[in-house]
């Protein structure tokens, strides 16, 4: 009886390890490329090396200072700008989405107002951003918001509003009504009951929602590609530019930048791992 249970265990581990390897190879390859010196960037098939023979921080130095002694051409623009752009726009996009989403979610969850709000917010989530680009482009140019951090943050706030809204609604539904009613009876107006009791109770879920929405904004490429030109270009768009005719794709540099871009969402993702299902399925499913 026990030996086929042992067999099951071995089988299980083998399959899982295979899946882990497949999941890790692309990330590992980019990580190793990020530390490879220029000469190891492109290899003829024969002696392709998995791990850099002599790892260097040259690539990071290159993208952040514009030049390093191994590479002859210097960058006309360093990666410092894009990193700041990504941070600022993702952060403010999150603030907009979470603030508007939380207020709306509480109102719908508690007072059953807002009629078609939940459905229309969901619809916003379902269709591709490309399908709204023309009006957005016209409005943003008319309002002078092209290539500005507030322009990009506003569109990020709108695009991720559905996630913040639905995530917070599921958390508010879990707050027992009696606790708010107790606050009302003890002297609070409906707003104070929200502000003094309900909001403090959902601090942790609020943090989770912020992280979740931040990951989404940080991961955008298309919107930034369209709405930014020079000053507020984000990391993914800047990566796309790191391609000079002469040397072809600057593998090492792009890999370094890619590594920097990949770390925050992976770290935040693991922190809010428990609530990912709830966020991605709009509360239809809880862990």
């Amino acid at each position, binding site marked *: 009886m026990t030996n086929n249970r042992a067999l099951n265990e071995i089988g299980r581990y083998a399959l899982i390890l295979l899946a882990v390897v497949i999941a890790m190879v692309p990330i590992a390859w980019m990580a190793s490329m990020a530390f490879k010196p220029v000469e190891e960037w492109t290899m003829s098939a024969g002696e392709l090396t998995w791990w850099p023979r002599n790892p260097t921080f040259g690539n990071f130095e290159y993208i952040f200072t514009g030049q390093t002694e191994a590479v002859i051409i210097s960058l006309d623009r360093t990666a410092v700008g894009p990193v700041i752009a990504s941070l600022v726009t993702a952060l403010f996009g999150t603030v907009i989405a979470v603030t508007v989403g939380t207020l709306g979610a509480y109102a719908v969850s508690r007072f059953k107002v807002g009629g078609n709000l939940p459905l229309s917010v969901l619809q916003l989530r379902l269709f591709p951003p490309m399908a709204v680009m023309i009006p957005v482009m016209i409005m943003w140019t008319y309002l002078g918001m092209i290539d500005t951090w507030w322009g990009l943050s506003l569109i990020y706030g709108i695009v991720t509003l559905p996630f913040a809204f639905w995530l917070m609604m599921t958390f508010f539904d879990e707050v*027992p009504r009696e606790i708010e009613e*107790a606050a009302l009876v003890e*002297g*609070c107006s409906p707003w104070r009951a929200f502000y003094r009791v309900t909001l403090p109770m959902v601090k942790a879920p609020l943090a989770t929602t912020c992280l979740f929405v931040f990951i989404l904004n940080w991961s955008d490429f298309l919107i930034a590609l369209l709405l930014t030109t020079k000053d507020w270009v984000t990391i993914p768009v800047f990566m796309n530019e790191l391609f000079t005719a002469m040397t072809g794709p600057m593998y090492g540099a792009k890999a370094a930048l890619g590594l920097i871009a990949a770390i925050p969402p992976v770290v935040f993702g693991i922190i809010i791992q428990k609530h990912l299902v709830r966020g991605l399925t709009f509360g239809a499913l809880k862990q």
Partner: protein
Amino acid sequence: MAKLELRGVTKTYGKTVGVANIDLTVEDNEFFCIFGPPSTGKSTILRLFLGLETPDSGEVCIGGEVVNGRLPAERDLAMVFQNLALFPHMTAGENLAFPLAERKTPKAERERRVNEVADKLHIGPLLNKIPAHLSGGERQRVAIGRALVRDSNALLMDEPISALDARLREEMRVELKRLQREMHRTLVYVTHDQEEAMSVADRLCIIRDGGIAQIGTPQEIYNAPNSRYVAEVIGAPPMNFIAGAIGEGGAFSADGLDLALTFKTNGAAGPGDVGVRPEDIVIEREAPGGHAVAATIYEVEPLGGFTVVALSVGDSVLRAQITGQPQFTLGEPVHLSLALDKCHLFASADGARIATGATG
């Protein structure tokens, strides 16, 4: 402290009826208990007083003043919810101070009142713990403390001790009664545990499907239920009923049962039921004279302090409650006689009580 009144109040939730045309007055400084089986509208009455619900029609009055439109915060009432509704992110002390903080009471005064209530409820050492770290009994005291910390118009409680285990419930109901007396508060207390209702109430109100079946002292309700419904819900094990017919002059006869009972009925005749409580049935082995009826033992339930003996008489089964632990064997023939002054006569049609006390 103030008088609470509902005048002709009706509240419906879509199709379901919460309460229907209720007239209710809770006197000042009274322990007023509302009893009824689960979901018959008891909590709706509390929510109407609190302003968490607005009546479809009728007036809600506190201290004689109509408060229909007022927000809960402006009604100056205090409430203990069934699941206690303590603020999970605040310590016990902060929970207690919350009502005073909301009403801008100066800090020194707040601390004084919080400590005063904490001592009275023996929760002094718990003040800096959060509810999650407290036991069921402790959380329950903190909830009561939060309701007592302010001189509110009245105190409302929705089955506050139903979640505690049996031992703690017995002690808590006595302590609640004593607290209410000491602090001179008008208290509206909802429960579906009939022993608890009988034990704590100054006056008891029996609810049936959103309407009032009867209001009176526990003794009145127990000894003179105004209808079969009230007689059934109050008293455990429940009252026995013998179906039969009422002839002229109040003679009651049940087929298959040679029971001769006459009641003072002013001419009412037709189908009726005699109700007798289990503790008013006497069982004897030998046949005494008088109106004893032959029966056989159907079932014996020893409950320690007393024993519930089920007797099959004719085609109906009556349950008697005998103190102590009498030994009966199933099927043993015995004789049962009823305490005549405690027998009630109900009209089968509407269940209303026609008379109490029969002659052999």
